[in-house]
Each structure stands twice: as structure tokens, then as C-alpha cells.
């Protein structure tokens, strides 16, 4: 989980290290846009914009969907990540609780053994 998180952060930071890509995010915060729209807006070639969008997409910051001949870009929601993180958070809590509970149960077992011995004596 930690490794996964740090990889994601690396990708996010490197995606954001470029002024055009930051501009694209700002643009998409206002409205979804096609790659052609974005290329126009940032005075770039289609190929150049595709590359930038690809970087943002791999970082999970943007998602794209092709409808007909137009590829529309929108801000990534990371919904799956959020759900996985939610479950993981609960699992970690219960796992930590139950590790402690293991110790308590172990102690109770020892106590019973000792008590049993005492009774037999």
C-alpha cells in the first residue's frame, strides 16, 4: 500500500512539474475538453498534447474517453483508489485491534493452564 501510494505520488509530482500540464488541469477543472480543444488552447500540436494528456492520465489526474472520433478529457476521480483506500483503512484498524486481542486471548489461555494446574495439585 505504501509503495503503491509513493509511486502514485511520484507520478503526480512529475506530471505536475510541467507548466502546460498544470494549465490543462486548470482547464479541465472548468470543463471537460477534447484533445483538439486543448491543443488549440495551448498552441500545441495534437501529438504534443496527446503526450501531455498521457502523462496526466498515467498519474490518475485525468481520464479520457473516446466517443466517435473525439477523445474527451476530464479530471480523474480516482474512485477505485478511494474505495480501496477506504477498505484498507478499516482492515488496518481491525488488524491492529485483533493483533492485540490475540495477545489477550493468549494470556487468558496461559492463565487457564496455570489455574488448571493449581486445581489438580
Amino acid at each position, binding site marked *: 500500500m505504501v509503495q503503491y501510494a509513493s509511486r502514485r505520488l511520484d507520478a503526480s509530482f512529475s506530471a505536475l512539474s510541467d507548466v502546460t500540464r*498544470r494549465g490543462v488541469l486548470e482547464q479541465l477543472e472548468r470543463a471537460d475538453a477534447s484533445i483538439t480543444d486543448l491543443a488549440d488552447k495551448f498552441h500545441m500540436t495534437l501529438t504534443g498534447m496527446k503526450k501531455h494528456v498521457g502523462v496526466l492520465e498515467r498519474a490518475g489526474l485525468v481520464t479520457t474517453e473516446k466517443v466517435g472520433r473525439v477523445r474527451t478529457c476530464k479530471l480523474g476521480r480516482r474512485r477505485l483508489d478511494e474505495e480501496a483506500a477506504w477498505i484498507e483503512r*478499516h482492515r488496518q*484498524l*481491525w488488524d491492529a485491534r485483533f493483533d*492485540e486481542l*490475540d*495477545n*489477550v486471548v493468549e494470556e*487468558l489461555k496461559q492463565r*487457564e493452564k496455570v489455574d488448571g494446574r493449581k486445581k489438580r495439585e
Partner: protein
Amino acid sequence: MDARRGSEPTPMRNRTTVERKSERELVVTRTFNGPARLVFEAWTKPELFKRWWVPKSMGMSLRSCEMDVRVGGKYRLEFEPDAVAFFGTYREVTPHSRLVWSNEESGEASVTTVTFEERGGKTFLVMRELYPSKEALDAAGTGAADATVETFAQLDELLLTMGASV
């Protein structure tokens, strides 16, 4: 990261599973290496319960723990340092096999059901938390673990703001 010291015997650790069964229900399972009467005891005696319910990773500790474990009996857990309290009522108490209580600290109560099933000297435990709504379960807290995720969400936000401010 493994802080376990080499000299300690490694106890057999069982796996904790957590599953969101529905929009309103969380189910946690775990096997314990002891008979059901002992696991049940650890859930129903406050001096034992408070030793494991608030693990260090939660970033909180218990100030007090009162449990009147019988149908209609109340429980109350108070945390330090911010005096947050969890409280509710036991609805079913069947020794060594089943516990049901309501969690009443928030407006709409959730209900926790714990079953203890002994299998060859071990106990298979299932805990179900049924929330009144999807939103209530979404918001269910996990203490310090939340903070990690919150930090992450804040960083995400910061990154987006950085992007937007250029």
C-alpha cells in the same frame, strides 16, 4: 518495517478480512487461536476489552471504559485527549456465541453484531456493522488511519491547486 524482535517467537497470525457487503454493511472476520469462551471474555470484560480495542495506530487512548454486558445494559468508552465518547446499548448477549449492540453516539444508530464460532479449539469471529445509510458507513471513522488518508487527500488537493494557480 518489521519491528518484531528476532528473539521473540513469531506467533501464528491469522488474516483479518474486511468486506463491504452492501452500501450499509461492513463485515470483518478473523480466527483466534483460543476457545470461544476466552475470546468472548475479551469482548465483554472492560479491563480486557480496553487493552485491544484502541490500538496504538489509532492515535488515541481510552480514558474510561464502562460495560454493563446484559440485554438493555449500556456501554460507554471515553477517549483521550479530546473526550470523544462512544456509547450505546447491548441488545443481545448470548455467552460465548453472540453479542449485539447499538452505537448511539451519532444521531442515527448503527448496529454491531459479533458472532463467535468455535472450531477445533479456535474461534472464528464475524463482526457485522450495519449502518443506517450509505453515507453513515462512508463516514465511519478509523482514527489515525483516517488522518493518513486525509493527509493524502489534502496533498491531492494541494497538487490540484498548484496546477490551478499557475
